């Protein structure tokens, strides 16, 4: 399915999971993008960091727990997951609380990385 062009894609996740469908349906776009041989990265800033918390249990809320999908991303060769340090700190979330390996970046580094992309899609 490659189009012969390789672009740098960044998917920016700013929202908590479950309150809205953006995190779940955003992840579906990320998975599809893996089939196109592009340079894909994911950024988690602001409430988006909550998407990666360990121990999500949606049984009582009656919704589908899609958090295991973040662990499956590696199998799709999507390995560039960036989390903003200031967002973690403002929420009292530690890197050890996250369910996948990520690279933690300061806000300035995150802004620089965004500035290097060709396509930025925020959910």
């Amino acid at each position, binding site marked *: 399915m490659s189009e012969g062009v390789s672009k740098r894609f960044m998917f920016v996740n700013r929202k908590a999971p479950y*309150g809205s469908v953006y995190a779940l349906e955003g992840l579906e776009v990320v998975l599809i993008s893996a089939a196109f041989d592009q340079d894909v990265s994911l950024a988690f800033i*602001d409430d988006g960091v909550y998407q990666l918390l360990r*121990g999500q*249990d*949606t049984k*009582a*809320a*009656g919704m589908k727990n899609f958090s295991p999908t973040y662990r499956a991303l590696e199998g799709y060769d999507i390995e560039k997951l960036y989390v903003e340090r200031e967002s973690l700190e403002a*929420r*009292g979330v530690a890197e050890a609380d996250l369910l996948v390996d990520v690279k933690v970046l300061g806000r300035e580094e995150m802004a620089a990385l965004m500035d290097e992309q060709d396509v930025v899609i925020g959910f």
Partner: protein
Amino acid sequence: MLHIVNKSPHERSTLAACLAHARAGHAVLLIEDAVVAATRGSAATLAALPAGVSLYVLSPDLQARGLAGQLAEGITAVDYRGFVDLVAAQPRVQSWL
């Protein structure tokens, strides 16, 4: 009055608006994405709580987000049945949308 808030205070101003209008004897219930305000990492929530206002959080929504172990002291977790009981116990209910 039972005030219901459903958005993260990091994303929206609804919790702040609610707390600015809550009065002694009222209860505030955090549901959906607002449950992130009930964690130890969100000390600002309790700091802004007016005197005499009690704060509750919906545990199914806290669990869904992996935050069940992070509940701050002074906030009471309730299930959907507890949500119903709160609505019945307070004479009025107001959702902050």
